[in-house]
């Protein structure tokens, strides 16, 4: 027996502990605090924060339990896809079907991805990393995680943190931009909800058709769109309540908890404490702003083209961030005029943004591969 060995065994927790770990634990505590006190996307930020804390206490994604979870759900890409099955089962695409012209806003809301990518490249990031930063501009958690885990897994932590933090900050980030870029007259525009009824048959066919089209046009987005639409099909079919409820509850809850932990477990001091993390956080915020600006510009364009029949505020929900952005736009319009209800239009644009984000994310994967970025 050697007392040195024993002492080492007993103090290995302290020996492995570095200042970097202490800083990262503080970061984790901040994330947990934001989740609990400020209620910023708590279902994700709380597990991410806790995962970050334990990653810096020796339980990172490179070892033990967290490695098992990381390999099972992130390496295989399963967790974001399982979450998408649940999300799909919660989305109602009827407003979009009734007003398909909203897709324009859903496309416009993706400019931030590419604008951010360009800026990241200018700042010296390599193409896959720049694209992973850009995908924060998809403003959709599972898409961002799916793309980043393929292109730049080492940056998954900061990217997921940025994506979810800013998403929960949308009620703070967007309103100033919305007020700055629209006139009061524009914000007062009332829109009749044409209310074209959507048949049950079409509501069921829609997820299948979207899967077909997107899988052909952007095959890299196929897993994302297929799972999102599978969830939606379970919902709209009306004949598989058991499965639809499993998707909206068991499946999404368990996947969310372990996705959050697994992402947090990548936030070790060596991975996270670098200038690139700061750049990711800054560029991620920029992506949100660019998306909003582009969405609003297209909203104003539609306002002009329709002779003032479209309230440009709904441009801001093309960014995705379903369903927060949709609700916020409707709320902003109501603040100007209490009797102005544009929620259905906003939700149409918002679900279009969801589709646009998935398509843009998939194309990004294909383009980076095509340009030799991988």
């Amino acid at each position, binding site marked *: 027996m050697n007392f040195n060995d024993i002492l080492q065994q007993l103090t290995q927790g302290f020996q492995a502990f570095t200042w970097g770990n202490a800083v990262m634990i503080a970061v984790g505590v901040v994330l947990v605090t934001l989740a609990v006190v400020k209620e910023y996307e708590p279902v994700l930020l709380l597990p991410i924060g806790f995962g970050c804390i334990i990653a810096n206490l020796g339980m990172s994604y490179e070892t033990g339990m967290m490695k098992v979870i990381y390999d099972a759900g992130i390496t295989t890409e399963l967790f974001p896809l399982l979450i998408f099955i649940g999300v799909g089962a919660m989305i109602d695409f009827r407003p*979009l*079907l*009734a007003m*398909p*012209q909203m*897709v*324009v806003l*859903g*496309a416009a809301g*993706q*400019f931030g*991805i*590419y*604008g951010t*990518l*360009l800026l990241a*490249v*200018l700042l010296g990031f*390599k*193409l896959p990393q*720049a*694209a992973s930063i850009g995908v924060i501009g998809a403003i959709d958690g599972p898409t961002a995680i799916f793309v980043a885990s393929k292109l730049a897994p080492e940056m998954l932590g900061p990217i997921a943190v940025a994506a979810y933090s800013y998403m929960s900050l949308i009620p703070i980030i967007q309103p100033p931009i919305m007020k700055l870029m629209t006139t009061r007259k524009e914000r007062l525009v009332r829109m009749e909800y044409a209310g*074209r*009824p*959507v*048949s*049950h*048959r*079409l509501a069921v*066919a*829609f997820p299948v*058709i*979207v899967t077909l*089209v*997107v899988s052909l*046009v*952007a095959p890299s987005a196929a897993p994302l769109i297929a799972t999102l639409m599978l969830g939606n099909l379970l919902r709209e079919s009306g*004949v598989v*309540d*058991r499965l639809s409820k499993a998707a909206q509850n068991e499946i999404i809850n368990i996947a969310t908890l372990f996705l959050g932990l697994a992402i947090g477990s990548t936030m070790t001091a060596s991975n996270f404490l670098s200038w690139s993390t700061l750049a990711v956080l800054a560029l991620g915020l920029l992506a949100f702003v660019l998306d909003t600006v582009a969405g609003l510009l297209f909203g104003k364009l539609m306002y002009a083209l329709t002779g003032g029949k479209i309230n440009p505020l709904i441009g801001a929900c093309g960014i995705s961030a379903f369903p927060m952005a949709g609700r916020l736009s409707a709320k902003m319009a109501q603040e100007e005029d209490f009797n102005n209800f544009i929620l259905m239009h906003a939700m149409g644009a918002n679900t*279009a943004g969801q*589709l*646009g984000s998935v*398509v*843009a994310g998939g*194309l*990004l994967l294909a*383009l*980076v591969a095509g*340009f*030799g*970025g991988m």
Partner: protein
Amino acid sequence: MSTLGSALWITLIGMGLVFLALLLLWGLMELMMRLTARSAAADEAEAAETAAEEVASQADSSRLARAAAAAVAVALALRQATLPPEGPADAQVSNWQAAMRTARLNQRANMFTRKQRGAGR
């Protein structure tokens, strides 16, 4: 080519294809909405009818029942007046469907409400 050049190309092609894909979806959605307009109207009418029945059955115990049902029926009639007459094929549920639904409902009821005989022991 420089990384920046690639990035510019990616931006150009990427945004172009995003718009293309979503405009394609627009076209398909518009097409499908028109193709299914009739069945959509039928669905709406059916839903309204169901709602009317529900209101009637819920209000059953009071005098309000008939009044409420009438109100819903009027609203429904107004709505339907603007729609093409619906085919009878779509309105009625096949025996087969009815049987399967009943079976599923039974099954579900069994699963969840059935008293486990052993449980009381």
